[in-house]
């Protein structure tokens, strides 16, 4: 399998114009956008964003995401306490949705990206199709983790009745939001073509 890189050819990401690599950093002769064989420093960027997401994952789950005041009683809920609350109150489908969207998906995403990064760095050649599919799923699922953040944003806007009932987002929500965004960016920074780079000429 011949790759464009071996033929010293660069494809423009924006306009699709194929051009010859001049041996240095290049611009598309047609639209002027920067031309690269692969996303620049893809692995380093993905790692950096992934590590940041992992760091923020802890406060996102440990700190309360939402502070609810209901008839003078103030309660602070973390994601897990919310899941436990719904589970104990019999709303187990809701509990499963929240748990999947807010706990499991970010975690799996980070694991998937980590796995992809490590396998690329180790020049592993196994299961390349599967890994590519894994990457596609990871990229696709990213935004759905924001369900929680949307719920909090909605509640905050809707429930504003002073001391009677009030919902205020807490620091955990910010951290959680950052985790989701960072994993999305990390997935974006990863260049799946790297998986196939080790394929050589087949």
């Amino acid at each position, binding site marked *: *399998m*011949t790759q464009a890189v071996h*033929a*010293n*050819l*660069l494809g423009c990401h924006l306009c699709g114009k*194929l*051009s*010859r*690599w*001049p*041996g*240095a*950093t*290049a*611009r*598309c*002769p047609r639209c*002027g956008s*920067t*031309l690269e064989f692969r996303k620049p*420093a893809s692995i*380093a*960027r993905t790692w*950096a*964003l992934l*590590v*940041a*997401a992992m*760091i*923020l994952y*802890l*406060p996102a789950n*440990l*700190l309360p995401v939402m502070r609810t005041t209901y*008839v*003078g*009683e103030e*309660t602070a809920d973390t994601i897990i306490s919310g899941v436990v609350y719904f589970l104990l109150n019999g709303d187990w489908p809701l509990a499963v949705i929240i748990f999947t969207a807010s706990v499991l998906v970010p975690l799996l995403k980070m694991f998937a990206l980590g796995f992809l990064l490590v396998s690329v760095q180790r020049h592993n050649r196994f299961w390349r199709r599967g890994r590519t599919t894994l990457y596609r799923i990871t990229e696709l699922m990213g935004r759905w983790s924001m369900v929680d953040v949307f719920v909090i944003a909605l509640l905050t806007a809707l429930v504003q009745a002073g001391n009677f009932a009030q919902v205020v987002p807490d*620091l955990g929500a910010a*951290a959680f939001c*950052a985790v989701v965004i*960072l994993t999305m960016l990390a997935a974006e*920074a990863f260049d799946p073509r790297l998986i196939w780079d080790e394929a050589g000429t087949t």
Partner: protein
Amino acid sequence: MTEPPGPNIPTATVVQRRRGINAIWVVPIAALIASAWLVYQAVVSRGPVITIHFGNAEGIEAGKTRLRYLNVEIGKVTAVKFADGGTGVTVTAEMMPGSDSRLTDTTRFWVVKPRLEATGVSGLSTLLSGAYIGMDPGEGGRSRRRFEALDEPPRVLSHQTGTVYRLWSPELESLSIGSPVYFRRLQVGSVVGYALSDDHSHVEIEVFVESPHDAFVHQESRFWNVSGVKVQASSDGLDIDVESLVALASGGVAFSSPQLPGAGGKVPRNHVFTLYPSRRESEEQAVIGTHPFLVYFNESVRGLKRDAAVEFRGLRVGTVREILDAKQLGNGEVRIGVLLGLDPERMPYDMASDLPTGWERRLQWVQRLADSGARAQLKAGNLITGQKFIEIDIVDNPVPVQVTAEMGYPVIPSAGGALEGITQSLASILTQVEAIPITEIGRDLGGAARAANRLANDENLTRTIRNLNTAVSELSALLNEARPLVVNATEASAGLARLMDDASGAVRQAEQTLQAVEATASEEGPMGHEMLTALREMSAAARAIRAMAEYLERHPEALLSGKK
């Protein structure tokens, strides 16, 4: 599949790019800093965790109940558990950061919930928000994390300025915690506590007088009970006095501070006052005798009764409560204990003390009293009736004593002998009085009266008197006939009048004597009566003698010839 690149593929434009450390690593560093800050916020800056022991967890919910100081949230209950190896529940609470300095030995916790009391309604706000735990940090003390909750909200919070005084009363009356304290009908404080004294002889009531009103409390201040309604019926009509409706419902205490010259010595906190049952009694400074003390006497306590006065230099300071049975000591000495109730505030010895128990305070007070040379003595109040009272006064050359306590009462040292001499001389006077032969005198008088009686009842005399009667009637006839004799008769009657005066003087004297006799011997009723009869007869006899004398004056010959 190698495809030779077509000649129509242009060469890309070359740009110069700066190479260096990838800026993307700023992101994880920022994430690390942000996480560290969040963790710091959540964990390191988390306030101290305390445990409070409650009798029960009514109204307390983990995760919901708050801790408040001055209505500002200062913590939150995180767990409610049964107390380990004991009764009640242990409440774990997470305090706000920076509250360490407020968690000391003196910090108090209690549950604030709606309370309906006679003095008012409190904690209504908790109806909506649910109960919360109130906190009062107190002053000073060592830092601690384990606390014991109060059953009732404290009546005095540490930020309230004022002074606590103690009132002693034989009974609690209708006072309760929270009962108001009035000064000129202005509420200036409240009852904050009460307890039975350790020897259960009286009730000690703690009142809190708020600042600046506590400045009005001085040595001469008098406290009295204003509970209930005072109805007084007099010629002016019915006088009904109610201090306030609150006091009517929950009882109350009022005090007055007379503006006396020299008064106004501010009293320290925990100073002891007597609680008088009413205003009148406080004005009269009635003796209550709140504090029990023992006194031992070696001499006779004859004449000393319950409720006899205890005086200090003539001022009444207490009451004899009980005279105990005589007891023999190891050395054969016999002594008699007398239980006194004293109002120590009437004595010039300060009872204020920091000692914890009333018993220790009393002991210390008696020691002060004894050190100044004061001793209890039996004194005669009335020499005739022999009534005695107890006088506490400073004696000359007192023997220093170490005050002890017996049967739980401090013993006031006594000084005997002051009364012995008086008693002896009194006894000798009485002996002399007894030696007067009152009975004999009475008997002699009785004899005299009987003799007179015999004379009056003599038959000859009666006959003579009858004759005299006839003679008198004849005489009157004779007088009518013999006018010239009138002059004579007038002279004679003048003499007779003189004689009568003399006789009546004698009679008066006799009467006086008899009265004296009667006064002396009135106890022997029958004899007095007899004497009275005798006297009556004697005067009758005197009248007969007078008649006879008249007749004889006119008819001297009758002595020889007999009556015609």
